[in-house]
């Protein structure tokens, strides 16, 4: 039945490639499950606070360290704050930091990798810059960035947005190097491919050469480093918060919740497990989505 439809569609006009991608994506079970999980997490952190209206910052010292109950479905922490509300609020921050920092680092890494790989003149400059960034000690650098820019950014964008911008930039600016190197390697190999020579003989200018021939063919490595990048961004944010360099202590993020709970881990293991599970679920679902997307974007794998 679908065959008949697709044949009819082929006869009329070249079909939009994204439909093929979606068809292939649908056949990847892991990716579909990942997509479902990721969307439920998004629903939890976006729609959740409208339904479960408790304030994540409300301190109730009489209800400290409680277990699961009707009043607090996921219990409370050491200051009597509701865990469900805190997980929902923390997820919003962690996922937005993860996605934005990943986008930033991938964009930066791809841009630098493509430029360094395609334009021989820029290669030395850009790749030595990349090596320089790789050689920098990250923690002191982040410390420096936070101490220098926290106050001016907080003043101009408000404390939360200011810190958000700072953290995202800090993570993005210190994690693009791997993808830049991977992309440069692939571009160097692709640049010598015969179809690029064919495009040169047609007279395709460099910018369209990159968007039409190079970028689609380096999609796979970019995809892989993007999905891994989300995970490491969420974890770096947690580490920063733990060191007191990230968001303020009363501001919930998944990393913060995790580290707050570590002290009383033996008494209240659920408080460690819950944010940990959320981080792992997000990372895992994103990885599966990335995997499915990578396969779906490759026409050689598509249709198998």
């Amino acid at each position, binding site marked *: 039945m679908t065959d008949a439809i697709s*044949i009819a569609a082929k*006869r009329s006009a070249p079909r939009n490639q994204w439909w093929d991608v979606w068809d292939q994506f649908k056949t990847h079970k892991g990716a579909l499950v990942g997509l479902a999980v990721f969307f439920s997490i998004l629903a939890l952190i976006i729609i959740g606070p409208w339904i479960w209206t408790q304030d994540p910052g409300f301190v109730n010292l009489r209800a400290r360290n409680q277990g699961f109950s009707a009043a607090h479905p996921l219990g409370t922490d050491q200051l009597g704050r509701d865990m469900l509300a805190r997980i929902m609020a923390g997820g919003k921050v962690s996922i937005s930091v993860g996605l934005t920092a990943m986008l930033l680092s991938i964009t930066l890494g791809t841009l630098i990798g493509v430029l360094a790989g395609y334009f021989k003149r820029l290669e030395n400059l850009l790749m030595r810059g990349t090596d320089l960034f790789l050689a920098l000690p990250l923690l002191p650098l982040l410390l420096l960035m936070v101490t220098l820019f926290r106050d001016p950014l907080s003043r101009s964008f408000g404390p939360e947005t200011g810190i958000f911008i700072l953290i995202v930039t800090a993570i993005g600016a210190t994690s693009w190097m791997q993808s830049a190197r991977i992309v440069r390697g692939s571009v160097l190999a692709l640049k010598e491919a015969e179809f690029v*020579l064919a495009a040169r003989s047609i007279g*395709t200018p460099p910018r369209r050469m990159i968007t039409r021939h190079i970028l689609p063919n380096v999609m796979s490595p970019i995809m892989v480093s993007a999905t891994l990048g989300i995970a490491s961004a969420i974890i770096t944010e947690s580490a920063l918060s733990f060191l007191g360099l990230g968001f303020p202590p009363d501001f919930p993020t998944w990393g913060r919740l995790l580290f707050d709970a570590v002290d009383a881990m033996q008494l209240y293991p659920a408080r460690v497990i819950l944010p940990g599970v959320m981080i792992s679920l997000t990372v895992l679902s994103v990885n599966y989505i990335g995997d499915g997307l990578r396969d779906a974007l490759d026409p050689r794998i598509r249709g198998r």
Partner: protein
Amino acid sequence: MLDHTPTKKTLVEVDGLRMYFPITAGLLRRKVGDVKAVDGVSFNIYEGETLGLVGESGCGKSTCGRALLRLYNVTEGSIRIGGVDIATLSHDALRRMRPTMQMVFQDPQASLNPRMTVAGIIGEPLDEHTKLSHSEKLERIYELMDAVGLSRDFANRYPHAFSGGQRQRIGIARALALSPKFIVCDEPIAALDVSIQAQVVNLLEELQDRLGLTYLFISHDLSMVRHIADRVAVMYLGKIVELAGREALYESPKHPYTQALLSAVPEPNPENESSRRRIILTGDVPSPANPPKGCNFCTRCPKVMEICHRVEPASREIEPGRFVACHLYETATTAETTAAHNSAGKARLSNDNQPTQQGV
């Protein structure tokens, strides 16, 4: 062949084309020498004809073809296509020239972007050089697919779903998209099955008849070149050693290298095959980074003379339309130069060789 086609216009004129690739070494990447891939090549291609370019692998055939379309920046020399010297054109002007000259590549798998559909691949030249509407473009793509014998249903498929012959047809359709005058076919059949080779060559010939195309047909398959080419140029180590009309070249090759090359072609008739005398060359092709002094072929030539190690033979027209770069034929044309460098021994040698040449 020149005498047969006196009225034909010259489409491509190549004069003293040199393509050197630098060799760098050491920490500072200093230039220590050049790979002389193409070293002073001159020839003309007339409108509507096919010039075959043959030679063993590594002799610079493909580099020559690519330099002709300025896919490389040539080191020296001029390439005139339709009167415009493209060796020195600016990028913009070159881009405007692109529609007149196109290329069909050797490896049909590698020359098609695996992430583009057939319609996208054939449509790329149209995107770059025309302002057709979406439906006009699609119509043109379908026309081209019909012209090369591909079903219109394939427009949405990706290159990996095709056989080698079909992929080469896609490549040919892409080359034809802008109605070029001149197509460089860089070993278009080398990667194909024998039965498919015939199909592709017939397609190329049919398109030539229909569209009046001019080909530079690069190949190492001598019998295929005999089939498709009007004139044949033989290359050895970056130089053209012999350039002649097809029949003349295959009937009586003049240059010792051409003789050796042609003696390697199997004879379909078993009787002739048993009497075929192969000229077996000894040794390897010298490195193009360090070609021998004098004649490039002097290290392997069965008829080598003393002068060959000293003086580089110039390409001279020994018969109308027939160019050979060999000291053996200098005696026939210019007696003075021979007398200047030489010796009775050489004359005797070349006389001795006469029967062998006719026998081959």
